[in-house]
């Protein structure tokens, strides 16, 4: 059997900004070091690699050079093929890109990376939804759903993948790649964005804290729920279909293509505006009922305020609570750490109004009651 081809990328400075209060390390690793920050990424990578156990024999590692992967592999006693060399000691996003490109050309089965949202985003920019990726959580910001719950869990997941003889049976799920603009975050303005959906391996029992019903059935349940929402649409209302894969199933059911990462406006079964901003939504909603269909960000549970800022407090107020439908897979809801949904619209009074218990559509004939909390 062909060995499992594992790409390994370590962002050596990821996580350094966290303990010194820099809210991320993008472009600031020098500043972090001056504040006394210690690298954490390599040690956490080592923890993951040490979990490979007997799976090691079935793995061929393709690592970025030096501190970006080869060093951690070496410390774990793993031979690796070095696919790229960092341009200097001060590694950068460009070095990550070079390494991922080299891996993408080498029929990699999985890119295992150590970093945070910034690293995930750099890697996703090249792998897209084609090459599977998995994050060892080492960053400061980790809002993306591409990370294992711990370095050990990441190692266990890789070992479990290697143990599946028929690779065509491995399961993947599209998972959110989110990032916040760190400069804005440091200025106090949070504007996280949804960059897309990476292909992330999924082995029930190992990655998530929730083992849930069959993944395929979950997808089918969402599709059926979306068809039901589409079939019951009020022809006179304007529907704001928020970003995300769950919500866009409603557009699929209507046979119209929307923007995965933006809010699309639909009325009478037709697309009225793609990727609309707040102004467009408010303008087009004049004189008719506004309804919102919104998803849940995996891993963290945000309904409003992450990746869908165009669904602003004004938009939400105009629609009203009763006109909001939340749709998400049962699997996603049960995998949330504290089983809570969050709203963070930037308008505390509105957040408090939205707090409480909501029904979330998880299937055509199934709702789950979830508690929504305000900041």
């Amino acid at each position, binding site marked *: 059997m062909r060995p499992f081809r594992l790409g390994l990328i370590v962002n050596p400075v990821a996580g350094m900004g966290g303990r010194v209060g820099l809210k991320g390390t993008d472009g600031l690793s020098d500043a972090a070091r001056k504040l006394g920050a210690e690298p954490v990424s390599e040690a956490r990578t080592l923890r993951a690699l040490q979990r490979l156990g*007997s799976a090691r024999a079935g793995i061929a590692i393709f690592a970025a050079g030096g501190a970006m992967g080869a060093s951690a592999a070496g410390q774990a006693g793993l031979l690796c093929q070095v696919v790229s060399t960092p341009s200097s000691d001060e590694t950068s996003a460009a070095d990550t890109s070079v390494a991922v490109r080299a891996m993408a050309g080498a029929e990699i089965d999985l890119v295992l990376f150590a970093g945070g949202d910034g690293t995930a985003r750099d890697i996703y920019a090249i792998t897209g939804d084609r090459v599977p990726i998995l994050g060892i959580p080492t960053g400061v910001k980790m809002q993306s759903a591409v990370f294992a719950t711990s370095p*050990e869990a990441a190692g266990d997941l890789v070992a479990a993948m290697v143990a599946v003889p028929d690779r065509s049976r491995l399961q993947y799920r599209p998972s959110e790649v989110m990032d916040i603009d760190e400069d804005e975050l440091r200025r106090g303005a949070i504007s996280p964005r949804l960059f897309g959906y990476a292909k992330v391996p999924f082995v029930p029992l190992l990655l998530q804290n929730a*083992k*849930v019903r069959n993944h395929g059935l979950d997808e089918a349940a969402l599709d059926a729920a979306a068809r039901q929402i589409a079939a019951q649409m009020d022809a006179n209302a304007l529907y704001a279909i928020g970003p995300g894969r769950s919500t866009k199933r409603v557009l699929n059911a209507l046979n119209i293509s929307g923007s995965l990462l933006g809010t699309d406006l639909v009325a009478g079964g037709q697309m009225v505006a793609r990727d609309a901003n707040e102004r467009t939504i408010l303008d087009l909603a004049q004189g008719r009922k506004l309804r919102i269909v919104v998803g849940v960000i995996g891993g963290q549970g945000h309904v409003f305020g992450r990746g869908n800022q165009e669904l602003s407090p004004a938009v939400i107020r105009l629609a009203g609570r009763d006109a909001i439908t939340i749709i998400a897979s049962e699997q996603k809801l049960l995998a949330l750490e504290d*089983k809570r949904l969050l709203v963070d619209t930037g308008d505390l009074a509105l957040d408090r109004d939205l707090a409480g*218990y909501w029904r979330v559509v998880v299937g055509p*004939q*199934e709702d789950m*009651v979830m508690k929504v909390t305000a900041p």
Partner: protein
Amino acid sequence: MSDNQATHLRQYHAPVWDEPVVMQLGYPGRRGQVFPQPARAAVEKVGTASCLIPKGLARTNAPALPEMSEPEVQRHYLHLCQETLGMLNISLFGTCTMKYNARVSEAIAQRPFVTDVHPLQPDDSMQGILQAIHEFDLGLRALSGMDQFIFQAGGGADAAYTNCVVTRAYHKSRGELKRRNEIITSIQAHPCNAATAAAAGFKVVTLNLEEDGYPSIEALKAAISERTAALFINNPDDMGIYNPDIKEWVRLVHEAGGLCFYDHANFNGVMGKIRARELGFDACMFMLHKTFGAPKGGGGPAVGAYGCSAELAPFLPKPVVVKDDKGYRLDYGRKKSAGKIREFFGNVPQVLKAYAWLLVMGRDGIDEASDISVLANNYMDHKLAKIRGLTRSNPQVTKHRLEMTRWSLGTLKTDTGCGTVEVSNRMADYGVDPWWMSHEPWIVPEPFTPEAGEMYSKEDLDYWMAVVARISEEAYATPELVKSAPHNQVIAQIKSDALNDPAKWAVTWRAYLRKHGDGSKSGSKPHAAE
């Protein structure tokens, strides 16, 4: 037995017989029983046995049955029994009440007055059976406060489905079925509640557990509406935490016009202590094959005893065993009946075993058994908490659990890579039955949910916990030993791929041959792991 002996782990290895499938055994012409030929006079008068079978029903080819002598059959099943831990070990299973099935009950259920009765024979010719069923019904009424029980459902999920059809018939009779199409349940109610509701055409509204270890009353209020048909709930659920607000829950659902169904899968912790009807419930279900000492799993068919209030009784599936001044009879003439869940009036031998258990236990015995099972679980809670890598679910809830507790091996998994599957596999190496992981969804990582019940001795529980403690030590010291377990069993880890692969699974010999070829010709035997 001293504590020392109880916790001394035995040397154990399962016998390996490499036992073939029974269809591969036997030789042409060999027989277990050779029946005498009928008397000539009889044949002359009515013909041979095959003449008596209508042509349309007679098969043209002899059935493909193994041809074996009686001792060969006995030996085959002895081997299988030895290879599978024999069903008489310590089995705390998990989320299921495991009880010893008294041999005297088996003997009663095998008497001719049970085995030779046919449900279509006249009522007055089977008064004894009907009386036993009726009296057992009365016993369950006493335990629940309900007004009528039936035993048609062939298991717990079947009883939940019975409840769905009764609920449907009730709302239909009031002209509200179209509107009342939602069943409220919780994420830790037995999954059959949601599944049967969906199968019966209802929409399912699921509540999550919160800080107290059960759903909050606010969540319930958010779920209740004029569309509510019923609440299906366990209390306690598998977390083992009793919801003390349950009366208020029932009141709220009733206020909205819905019905309330108490799934008594976890009855052991509350039997004799509470009565479903007194809490306001309209219906409930008992599993005779668990709580009431009738065999579970491979031991025979199951029975979900379903009971309801007088208001719902007209909608029960028929027939119902009733008593009038002429004696006992099967009442088929029930106009509002929801129909049938299964044929006739249930798995009668199981009902009799459960009735025997009820009579032997008596009211005080049942009360005491409940106390013992709660005490045993709390004893285990106390000792399991000291084992490294184990954590109790809902640690913030300090009050005692009832008859079971959901535990987590999340810490052990993070620390060692050994989780509930690996530990369970290793348990078999010490001669105890592996636990069963827990119902989906796993809202607690790497779960297990042992249930001591009233039957296992303190020494049994100590031995079982000593096994878990040893495996925890092994996981920290030599995790590969645990991950590659079992080592002392007939076969190593079972590849479960075939169970999910229609091209491989085979539940009949014919299907096996079709999918895997004739093992006997190629010289290879069917692999036990598949």
